[in-house]
């Protein structure tokens, strides 16, 4: 049996999940447009965790992330009636958050988007098989070493489950740019996490 046949089922499940949550979120947003605070609270709670995780990776500070979350949701409250369904609600909200975070980063000079080049990476290899907690810890360290745009593409893809096209909308860039950022992120991760790749670390990142 082909090794990837399972992805057919995953694809169906992912589509079903996306359609179901998207429909619910669209209903909530329509109620928010009518100034329904109960719907807004539900939407806020639904998005707080996703935004907090995404924005913490982005701006690297919890207090700044919290500020951007509330700025984002303030825009959602004010502009809910403008949402025309051209994208998923999650794409719309994450796009707002992305733009707000960029603005905030420009203002908050204490938070810099400095990136450590791969040649300064700490040694991450181990002789023991990776356990889940170790993997998470390593990924957390590795992600911090990636350029911001590559880190965000990974987060948007793997944690938030956005498609390539949706990420292009959120980050306001061409689809090919998303693919390129992901390509380089994967390449750097393979260098940083050789055990995951099941082979010795590559010399050239």
């Amino acid at each position, binding site marked *: 049996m082909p*090794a990837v046949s399972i992805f057919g089922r995953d694809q*169906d499940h992912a589509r079903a999940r996306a359609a179901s949550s998207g429909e619910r979120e669209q209903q909530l947003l329509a109620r928010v447009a009518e100034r329904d605070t109960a719907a807004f609270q539900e939407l806020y709670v639904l998005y707080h*965790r996703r935004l907090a*995780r995404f924005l913490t990776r982005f701006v690297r500070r919890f207090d700044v992330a919290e500020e951007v979350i509330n*700025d984002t949701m303030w825009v959602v409250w004010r502009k809910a009636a403008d949402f025309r369904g051209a994208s998923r609600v999650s794409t719309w909200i994450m796009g707002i958050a992305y733009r707000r975070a960029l603005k905030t980063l420009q203002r908050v000079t204490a938070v810099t988007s400095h990136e450590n080049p791969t040649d300064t990476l700490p040694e991450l290899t181990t002789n023991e098989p990776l356990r889940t907690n170790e993997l998470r810890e390593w990924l957390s360290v590795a992600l911090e070493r990636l350029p911001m745009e590559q880190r965000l593409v990974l987060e948007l893809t793997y944690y938030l489950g956005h498609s390539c*096209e949706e990420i292009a909308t959120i980050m306001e860039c061409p689809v090919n740019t998303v693919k390129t950022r992901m390509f380089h992120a994967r390449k750097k991760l393979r260098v940083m996490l050789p055990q995951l790749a099941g082979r010795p670390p590559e010399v050239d990142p």
Partner: protein
Amino acid sequence: MNQRPQVEEIHAEAWELLPWLVTGRLAPDDHARVTRHVDECEECRREVDLQAAIRAGLEGDSRVEYAPQPSYQKLMARIEELERAAPEDDAPSAPAPSRRAPPARIPRWLTGILVTQGAMAAALVLLIGFQSFERFLAPSYQTLTSVEPSAAMRGNLRVVLAPDVTVREFSALLGSVGARVVAGPSDAGAWTLAIPYAVDSPRFEAALRQLKLDPRILFAEPVATAVATR
């Protein structure tokens, strides 16, 4: 015929899309094409395993638990503060025509100000998109001429914020001139503020000047009736 370049091209294209194969977020056509290639490509299958491991590591990262309620309460307190006593401007539909004052009632001096503000207003119209200039002007006089608000709700200044102004910045701006929001935003994005000074007083003028000089304020003018009491 040499089909090697074509195979490499297919491999490169599939390789780029593997993360979204793992998450099940490929378009149906892409999914079919990539799956076909991966079935035949050992290197891609290893990469799929690697990406699936990375996804599992990122998906399950829950080292920090976030408590949304305090932040939500904070946001709602700000929203309530900003939108307090603004039911007419918050209505989702456009104001009824009967509430709209006729254009002929715009004082000549106000028309002059608006003409000199033409460039700024045009920029605002662009920002607001589909809002017409006439519609943008309407809220600057309709509420105070057609509906007499209570003293507590009366505003004496209208402002339009730059699109990127945050709640915190707006709150700080209000505090810096001693203003509070009494209505807004209108359909055109205008906020009505109340500054606790007479419109013709030096302190009001100073506050107005401060707001006009702030790049986060696109438009700031006294409301029509407040000025008319001069």
